[in-house]
C-alpha cells in the first residue's frame, strides 16, 4: 500500500526537489516569522506528538516547530516520544497517550505496519491521527511527510551528476545508514540505489552506524581505503561521519552526499567536503501537523490529504 502512496507523491516531490534552493529559504522564513497563523482552536485541545525517538536533532526540531505553533493556536502539545527507536516502546507511547486522554496524536511511524493496530484502537476512541515525517498504513486525517524514497533518489541523482561532471562513469559507491530496521532510512537507501540503476556504478552493501557519527566515520574511512568514488549517508550521524572521513582523507574528489541538515553538515558542505545534503523541513511538518489536527478537531474534514513536505538539496551555492 505504501508503494501506491510513493507513486502518488513522486510528482510533487520532484518539483520540490528541483526548486530546491528557493524552497529552502522559503520554509526557513515560514519557520521563523510564523507570527500570524490561519487556524484557531475552538477548545484548548490536548495533543500528543510521538516521534521515532526524542534524540535526533530532526525530531527535536520537529517538536520545536509544533510547540511554537501550539502556542499561537492555543493548544497543548505533549512530546511523548520513546527514548530509543523501538516499535514496542512507540506503541506503548501511543497507548499511554490514549490513556492520558489526548484529543489528537501527531505521529512519525517507526514502521508503516507496527503501530497500525494501536492507532486503530486510538481512532476507535475518537482520537484524531495526523502523520508527520513517516506515515503508517492506517487512514489518518492528514499526513505531512518526506517522501524518503524520492529523497534518496534525488540524492543519488545529485551524486551521479557530480561524478559525471568529474568524468567518472563507473566505480564503487558506499552507503552508510543508521540501522536496517527504520523504514524511512531504508526507503532512502532504496531510492538512492534506484537512481543508479542501469549505470556502471556498483553500490556496496549498506553498512550501519546506529546513528553514531564516529562509527560512521570509521566505516567511511574503510570505504575510502577500498577506493570508492562516492559515499551516501542516510541520516545525520552517518552524513557527518562521511564528511569527516573525506576531510581526513584529504581526497576531495570523493563525492559525499547526505541526508538531514545540522550545523556540522552545513559547515562540512561549505568547506567542500560534502557535495550536498537532502534537507527535510521538520519544523514545517510540526507546524502543519498541529494546524491539521486542530482543524479536524474543529470539525473540518481534511480527507486524508498527503502533503510531501519535500526535501531541498542544500549545497555550497544555496548555503550562503
Amino acid at each position, binding site marked *: 500500500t505504501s508503494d501506491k502512496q510513493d507513486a502518488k507523491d513522486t510528482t510533487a516531490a520532484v518539483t520540490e526537489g528541483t526548486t530546491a534552493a528557493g524552497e529552502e529559504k522559503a520554509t526557513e522564513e515560514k519557520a521563523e516569522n510564523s507570527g500570524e497563523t490561519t487556524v484557531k482552536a475552538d477548545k484548548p485541545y490536548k495533543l500528543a506528538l510521538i516521534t521515532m525517538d526524542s*534524540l535526533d536533532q530532526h525530531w527535536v526540531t520537529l517538536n520545536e516547530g509544533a510547540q511554537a505553533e501550539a502556542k499561537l493556536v492555543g493548544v497543548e502539545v505533549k512530546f*511523548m516520544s520513546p527514548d530509543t527507536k523501538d516499535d*514496542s516502546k512507540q506503541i*506503548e507511547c501511543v497507548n499511554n497517550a*490514549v*490513556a492520558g486522554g489526548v484529543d489528537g496524536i501527531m505521529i512519525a511511524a517507526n514502521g508503516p*505496519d*507496527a503501530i497500525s493496530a494501536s492507532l486503530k484502537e486510538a481512532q476507535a476512541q475518537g482520537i484524531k491521527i495526523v502523520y508527520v515525517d513517516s506515515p503508517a498504513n492506517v487512514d489518518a486525517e492528514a499526513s505531512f511527510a518526506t517522501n524518503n524514497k524520492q529523497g534518496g533518489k534525488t540524492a543519488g541523482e545529485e551524486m551521479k551528476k557530480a561524478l559525471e561532471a568529474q568524468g567518472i562513469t563507473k566505480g564503487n559507491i558506499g552507503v552508510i545508514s543508521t*540501522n536496517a*530496521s527504520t523504514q524511512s532510512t531504508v526507503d532512502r537507501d532504496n531510492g538512492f540505489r534506484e537512481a543508479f540503476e542501469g549505470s556502471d556504478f556498483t553500490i556496496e552493501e549498506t553498512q550501519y552506524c546506529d546513528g553514531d557519527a564516529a562509527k560512521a566515520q570509521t566505516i567511511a574511512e574503510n570505504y575510502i581505503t577500498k577506493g570508492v568514488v562516492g559515499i551516501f549517508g542516510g541520516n545525520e550521524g552517518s552524513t557527518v561521519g562521511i564528511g569527516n572521513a573525506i576531510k581526513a582523507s584529504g581526497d576531495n574528489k570523493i563525492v559525499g552526499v547526505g541526508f538531514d541538515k545540522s550545523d556540522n553538515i552545513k559547515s562540512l558542505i561549505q568547506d567542500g567536503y560534502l557535495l550536498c545534503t537532502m534537507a527535510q523541513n521538520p519544523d514545517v511538518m510540526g507546524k502543519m501537523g498541529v494546524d491539521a489536527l486542530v482543524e479536524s478537531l474543529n470539525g473540518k474534514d481534511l480527507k486524508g490529504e498527503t502533503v510531501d513536505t519535500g526535501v531541498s538539496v542544500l549545497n555550497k551555492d544555496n548555503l550562503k
Partner: protein
Amino acid sequence: MKNKVKEILRIRGMRGAITAFVGLVIIYVVFGCINDKVFSLQNNLNLLRSMAKYLLIGIGQSFVMITGNIDLSIGSVVGMSAMVTASLMTRGVPIMVALLVSLLIGLIIGYVNGELVGKFQMPPFIATLGTMFVARGIAYLVNGNRNTDNIASILGKDQGKLFQDAFYYGKILGIYTTFWIAFLIFLIFSFILGKTKLGRHIYAVGSNKEASRLSGVDIVSVIKKTYLISAFCSVIVGYILCAQAGMGNMEAGNMYEMYGVAAGVIGGVSPLGGSGLLLGTFQGALLWQTLENGLNMVGAQVGIQRIVIGVIVVLAVLMDVLVRNGNLFSKKNKQ
C-alpha cells in the same frame, strides 16, 4: 503471629521482594500525584500489559542468576524469535508451525548457552555475549536484513488478528491476554523453583557447585535447564512483540537482558547466586515498568528518564544491601 512474620522474613530473598514492593508503591503514588491519569483504569491495564514482557525476561534471567550465572543473549533471542515468527508467517506458514519453529530455534540458543557455561565452564558473561551477537545476527538474516511486512499480508486479516489478539490485543476478564500469559508462566515457574527438586538444585548450584556435585546434583544439566528456561521466556516475549507490532523488527528486544537483570535484582535476586524469589522478580518488573510508564506519562526528557532509572536501580539494591548489613560479610568471599 510474630514468629510467622519472622519465618517469612527469613525466606531467602523475601526481604528483597518486600523492599521492591514498597519502592513500587512509592513510585506509583508519586507519579500519580504528578499526573492523575496514571491512576486511570486504562493506564493500569496498559501497565500490566507492558510489564508482562519484563516479568518474563526477569523470570528467565532470575533462574540463570540464582545459579550464579548471567544470560546476555536474552534480548537478541527476543528479537530473533520475533523475526523468525513474523517472517515465517509472512511466508504463509501456519501460525502454530511458525511459533514452534521459533521456539525451537530459541531453545537451541539456550542449549548452546547451557553447553558453553555448564559443560565447558566458560565464563557466562562471555559465553552469552557471544550467543547474543549470533542470535541478533540470525534476526537480521532471516528476512534478508529487512523488517518483515505485516503478518496479515499473507495470513489474511482474521488469522493475523487471531494471533495479535491472542498475545497482545485480546482481553480476558477485562485484562489483556499478555498479562495472563506472563502470569501463568510466573505461577508455573514459581512452583518449579520453590517446590520441585530442580528448584532446590538450582539454589544449591548457585550456592556451591562442587558441594552440590558431590551430593549427586548433575550441575551441568541444572545449568542447562536454567538457560533453556531463560530462552523459553525470551521466545514468548518475542511472540508478544511480534503480535504487538504485527510484524518482525530486527532490533526488537534490544537491552532486554539488562531489564531482566534489573527486574530480578531490584526484586532481591542475588546476582551472586544461591538466593532469590520470583515473587521479588514480579515486583521488580512491575516497578521497572511503572517507572518507564510514569516518566513517559509526565513527558520527562530522555536524559532525566535515564538518570531517574539509574538512581532507582542503585537505590533499590543499596537499600536491600544496607538492610541485611550483617550478611554483607559473607558475600565478600564469593563476590
